[in-house]
């Protein structure tokens, strides 16, 4: 197991900057998720950890030792690729055995470990088959077994669940999380699915265009996003973002004035989560535009003087119909105010209806 430190890591290909100014420490045994949109440098970061790519600048440390120039094969890192990358010409057993062939492990000991790890991820029935004869979920487990059999000090998962169907994804999510907790191996999961990140990881690193946007627990990112990007990226259905202008304790959105707290001025964006808006006896007058029953909750898209916003209401039965008029409210503590120029959160600021 290892403690991983990124120290101002930068990776470029010609003019393309894939990763920039990446500084981050991952504790021994921690489960961290790298979350971000496509092309933000997640895979590049992972491959630098694996030793496939060398950082252009900066230092990468495992347990305090700089490993920039240590070859991939000497790092003892387990990796599961999105495409699984199983060796097509080998059976499942040979696939799992492969990493042990390059270690000084006795044949009988190697066989024992292969059987053991195969049981752990439930592929012990499939040992004789070729990868081409397995389903996506089974291939995924075999890839996991192959990464785990060498008892890696670091486990890297690059979008391991994105090729699975929704049910299997949920099962695997729980299984991987339980396995990680059991083995205690430092794990980094790459994903662009925020549900995957928030459900599995202890800590989330949200990336954008090669840089870290915010690091924190799932709650930190959801409730206390430090930037407009994180607020918009985390959460489904997404947060309501309403552009407006602030001056003299007033926040004007679409010509509609709200009372504003904190030191806010100039172009700002008001963020309110759909579940923080609720129907009340008095408030902003809104017309229901669209209704999406989602099982436990119902999502309303309504039109109001602030613009078009979404409202999430608990309960599967909905009491409103399209075209109905209703009153909306939200509370000061549930609002986030972002400076539109810097895209940063304005700390301690909020807005509410003027009574």
């Amino acid at each position: 197991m290892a403690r991983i430190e990124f120290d101002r890591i930068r990776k470029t290909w010609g003019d393309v900057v894939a990763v920039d100014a990446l500084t981050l420490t991952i504790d021994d045994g921690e489960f961290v998720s790298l979350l971000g949109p496509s092309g933000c440098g997640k895979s590049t970061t992972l491959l630098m950890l694996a030793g496939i790519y060398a950082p252009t600048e900066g230092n990468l440390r495992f347990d305090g030792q700089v490993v920039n120039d240590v070859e991939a094969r000497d790092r003892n890192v387990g990796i599961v690729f999105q495409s699984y990358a199983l060796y097509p010409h080998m059976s499942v057993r040979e696939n799992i055995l492969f990493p042990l062939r390059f270690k000084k492990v006795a044949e009988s000991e190697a066989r024992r470990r292969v059987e053991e790890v195969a049981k752990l991820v439930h592929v012990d029935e499939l040992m004789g088959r070729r990868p081409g004869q397995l389903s996506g979920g089974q291939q995924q487990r075999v890839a996991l077994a192959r990464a785990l059999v060498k008892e890696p000090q670091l486990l890297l998962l690059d979008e391991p669940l994105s090729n699975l169907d929704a049910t299997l994804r949920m099962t695997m999510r729980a299984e991987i999380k339980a396995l990680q907790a059991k083995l205690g191996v430092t794990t980094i999961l790459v994903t662009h699915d925020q549900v995957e990140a928030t459900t599995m990881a202890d800590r989330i690193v949200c990336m954008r265009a090669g840089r870290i946007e915010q690091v924190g627990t799932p709650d930190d990112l959801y409730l206390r996003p430090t930037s407009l990007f994180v607020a918009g990226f985390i959460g489904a259905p997404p947060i309501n973002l309403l552009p407006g202008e602030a001056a003299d304790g007033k926040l004007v959105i679409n010509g509609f004035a709200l009372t504003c707290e904190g030191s806010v001025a100039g172009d700002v964006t008001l963020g309110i989560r759909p579940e923080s808006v609720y129907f009340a006896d008095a408030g902003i007058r809104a017309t229901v535009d669209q209704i999406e029953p989602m099982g436990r909750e119902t999502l309303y898209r309504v039109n109001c003087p602030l613009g078009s916003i979404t409202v999430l209401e608990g309960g599967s039965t909905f009491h409103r119909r399209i075209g109905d008029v209703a009153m909306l409210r939200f509370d000061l503590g549930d609002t986030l105010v972002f400076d539109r120029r810097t895209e940063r959160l304005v700390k301690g600021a909020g807005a509410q209806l003027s009574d």
Partner: protein
Amino acid sequence: MEVMFGALQDQIQKPWDRLAARARWMRRAKLAAMYGFLIAVSAPVLLPYFWMVTVAFSSKTGTVDTLILWRAMAILLPFVFGCWIWSTIGTTARQMFFGFAAITAVAVAAFVILVLPDLHLGNFIFIGERNFGDIVRETRTGSKKGEVSGGIDFPSVWLAFANSLYLAGGQTIIVAVIASLAGYYLSRFEFAGRAAMLRSLLVLHAFPVLTLIVPLFLILNFVGLLDQLLGVMLVLVGFELPFAIFIMKGFFDAVPWEIEMSALTDGASRRQTFVRVVLPQVTNGLIAISVFSFIRGWEEYIFVFTFLIDNVNWTMSLYMFFVRDDILGIDFGLVSAVGVFYLAPSLVLYLVAQKYLAQMTIGGVKG
């Protein structure tokens, strides 16, 4: 309701039956047309081979007997025709089997009666006899041993066979090794001039090789490889390589990067990764270029004719050429027999490897 529904079904039933019958008929007609077309286009290619084999096993020195050819044809043509007809008539697998079995039985019986008695191995005298030319000439003219000579001095056919094997096999090994290394490099690594190199690979293949015969002769002479099999081998390698590299690059392109990265993190060195993980993914390509290289070396004629002089260096193609030169006027059965002997290895190779060859497409996407 019930009644109405039944009436409706009756109405639909009739045209559907008709449509289905018509579709079945069309399908058969198309199949028959397709088989007919295939037979028609392959006949001109295959018939000479059929004749060559027949002549090689039947013709006798000094006699010109074409009757056997016609008899063989009289069996072959009805056989092919019968199979063709039956393939469109038969419907079940059982019918097909018994139909073909019957046709084959008739053909075999006719063969045993009409052709078999005339077959013999006399024309394969060259396999054990170096001086077959003189013997054949004596038989022909009826003169005694030693009276007629002055023909060409032939080496043992097995020497020519071994030379061909050495030339084709050696060339194949060199091409396979270089093409897989170069193809891998071209597929995976970025370097200055990569695009230009790829383009030139194909352009190189477009030049007629014969145009270089004079400079090549001079070069081989200078480096002392003239009249040596190794010299021809290297020349052939030079001509075969560009295309082989191109094919191999296509196959390597189809191998995902991830499995290499995976092998590297699993502890394999670059060389181990190449040999144990990447190469097994491109075996079909390797087999394909090997077979083509081998056949190309086996059939090579112009370069061996130009660059090899001494008869200990003769390959099968040269042997064949001189047999034709010496004997054709006397005994075309013997020439055909040499042809059959020459043809057999490449035929066997094709049959063994055809499964892999069929998968080769430019770009190397495997089926």
